[in-house]
């Protein structure tokens, strides 16, 4: 079973400015991947979702890919 990416890489905080990290959890259409695909913990999945939404608001990530 795949391990949580954040705990295995010792990442404690998920920053909305860290778009290269967040892109790992987005589909090619820029949709957020489901937890069954990301294999991260529920707590970290919520943090990823929060960061992605913040990055979208600031125009760092798209809402939908062109």
């Amino acid at each position, binding site marked *: 079973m795949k391990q949580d990416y954040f705990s295995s*890489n*010792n*990442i404690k*905080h*998920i*920053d*909305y*400015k*860290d778009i*290269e*990290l967040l892109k790992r959890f987005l589909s090619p259409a820029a949709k957020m991947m489901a937890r069954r695909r990301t294999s991260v913990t529920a707590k970290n999945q919520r943090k990823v979702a929060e960061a992605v939404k*913040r990055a*979208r*608001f*600031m*125009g*760092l*990530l*798209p*809402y939908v890919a062109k």
Partner: protein
Amino acid sequence: MENETKARTEVYEIGYLMVPSIAEENLGAEVTAFKDLLTSHGVTFISDEYPRMMELAYEMSRSIMNKKQKFSYGYFGWVKFEVSTDHTVAIKEMMDKNEIFIRYLMVKTVRENTMSQKRAYKADGPRRKPAHTKTDAEQAPIDEEAVDKEIDALVLE
């Protein structure tokens, strides 16, 4: 007890998008003016990143001088600071009124760096390499024996 909770300070971060019409040479002055405004609210700066021009992921609109304008580019920067919770509303009002900002985002954060260390993942790569050198080292005694045999053969000749 109530007075203590009112005087509480928190660490905040403001990420902002400045209008692209600002010239590069005037950008420093605009950032300084923005920081001075924050200082007037009693903030203590922790860290920041100078704004840099970037293409936005989608087109944004903002009303400037009562006229709606659309933006595809902007200067994105951020500033992290500590301030009393009493001043946050005033800071937000100041940001809303300031028309050099297309958008801003004020979030609670922590004092330490929140960006992930990209090298941490790559650091595992080079660690595997010494494992290969170990196998080479194991093969070394075999090479020595072969060399000895070759020397013996030469001596006999």
